[in-house]
């Protein structure tokens, strides 16, 4: 079954969508959309380093994403606004990464694959890494779920209940770095943030509890990955961007439908 590249692509897309859904919800709730973006951009530097040192791409990306995320977490609140810091670090990391890659004359052609991903080139080994990483992230987020929610809701309430907001932030940061590292091959640096945020944003109008929002986001992400993949096959378009386009369309539909549905009961009240 894994011999078919389309099957592998579908499984890779579903794996990433499942892990990205709950994580994307936290990114939306904590208003750190830029954070996902910055971590993803820094991943480019990781790709360059791995190619220079001939180490597995996954490892290099993971290390650089983690460093970036931890650096931003530590520096924020020390005189710079978060968005300024992220803007500086994300784009400089991407620029340094691109320059570093250009020194490797032999691999210049592969650059597009890391910027936009190449889900159709996923190997069985890649699939193992993707599902392993995603399963780890899902397990971690599920295990810390209640504490993560409380820390997201209000840091002081978390402190009072013996939950450390700093530790929970670290759990999210590490999870984010893992998802970026495994998803880079599927959707690429430029579209990872979209995979994280758009399904969660589309799920918001239909959710009454945090769990419902994560579940609906996972459903939208998986459905979008499969449908986008199929569409790209028929239209002969690049797969990663097609998936994101499809999910973005779902977001527009969700907005239109929720305006119709949610505003009506308020009028009756």
């Amino acid at each position: 079954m894994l011999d078919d590249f389309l099957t592998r692509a579908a499984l890779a897309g579903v794996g990433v969508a499942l892990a990205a859904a709950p994580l994307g919800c936290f990114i939306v709730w904590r208003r750190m959309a830029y954070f996902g973006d910055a971590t993803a951009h820094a991943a480019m530097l990781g790709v360059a380093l791995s190619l220079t040192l001939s180490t597995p791409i996954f490892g290099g990306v993971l290390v650089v994403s983690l460093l970036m995320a931890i650096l931003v977490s530590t520096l924020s609140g020390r005189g710079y606004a978060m968005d300024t810091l992220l803007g500086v670090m994300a784009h400089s990391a991407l620029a340094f990464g691109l320059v570093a890659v250009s020194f490797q004359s032999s691999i210049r052609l592969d650059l597009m694959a890391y910027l936009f991903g190449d889900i159709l080139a996923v190997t069985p080994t890649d699939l193992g890494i993707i599902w392993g990483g995603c399963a780890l992230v899902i397990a971690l987020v599920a295990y810390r779920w209640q504490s993560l929610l409380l820390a997201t809701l209000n840091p002081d309430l978390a402190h009072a209940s013996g939950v450390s907001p700093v530790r929970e932030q670290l759990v999210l940061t590490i999870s984010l770095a893992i998802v970026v590292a495994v998803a880079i091959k599927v959707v690429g640096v430029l579209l990872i943030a979209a995979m994280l945020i758009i399904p969660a944003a589309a799920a918001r109008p239909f959710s009454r509890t945090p769990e419902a929002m994560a579940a609906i986001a996972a459903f939208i992400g998986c459905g979008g990955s499969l449908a986008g993949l199929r569409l790209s096959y028929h239209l002969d378009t690049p797969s990663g961007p097609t998936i994101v386009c499809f999910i973005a369309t779902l977001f527009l539909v969700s907005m239109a439908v929720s305006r119709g549905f949610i505003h009506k009961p308020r009028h009756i009240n």
Partner: protein
Amino acid sequence: MLVSTQGLSVRLGGHRVLHHVDMSVARGEIVTIVGPNGSGKSTLLRTLIGAVKPSTGSVQRADGLTIGYVPQRLFIDDTLPMTVARFLSLPDRKRCKKVAVALEQAGVEGLDKRQVMDLSGGQFQRVLLARALLNSPDLLLLDEATQGLDQRGSAAFYRQIEQVRQTLNCGVLLISHELHVVMRATDRVICLNGHVCCHGTPETVTSTPEYQSLFGLDDSDAFATYPHPSNAGPGLESVN
């Protein structure tokens, strides 16, 4: 002793907010912190829960202390969907029935399916109290918990605190600006203005010059906190 501080000083952004504060709360007592705006009342509470690190001095908490905390202001981002029942199940899951009872006790029954951000200020304040009480706290920390409540709601609130103190035998530390109401409901008063100006029973504190200069009360206001003389007059003594 549930919680105590020794020589506690806190600096926030280079500014000295608390200076050499010694205080404590024991099981079963209600302690009120009064003080003008910016006197470090909320910072003291936030230091007690561990959200603010002391620059010098220390905070001692009893082993396994469960804290119920009602903050002064709580902003819930509307990107986060959250029903009242779900909110009450944080950080520990609660049975629906327990949630319903807690809401009823707080005077907001039937709100469990409502979204938290759709509540009015007063309703939300009561939901926060219900959540704090659900975990059977040893220590209840209330930061101006009655703001946003109407007068009747505020009176009911203090009655519930008194009741909770009796059933749970917990310590209560509260911040309030409603001096007249609070002075009747509290065992001890700590008057804070960066440091502890004075402390003791409501009667002793209100008669100190520090308290009177801080709150700028004229005589009639200050005396209003005392029991009216006729209540404890000679007529009463003869009955005894």
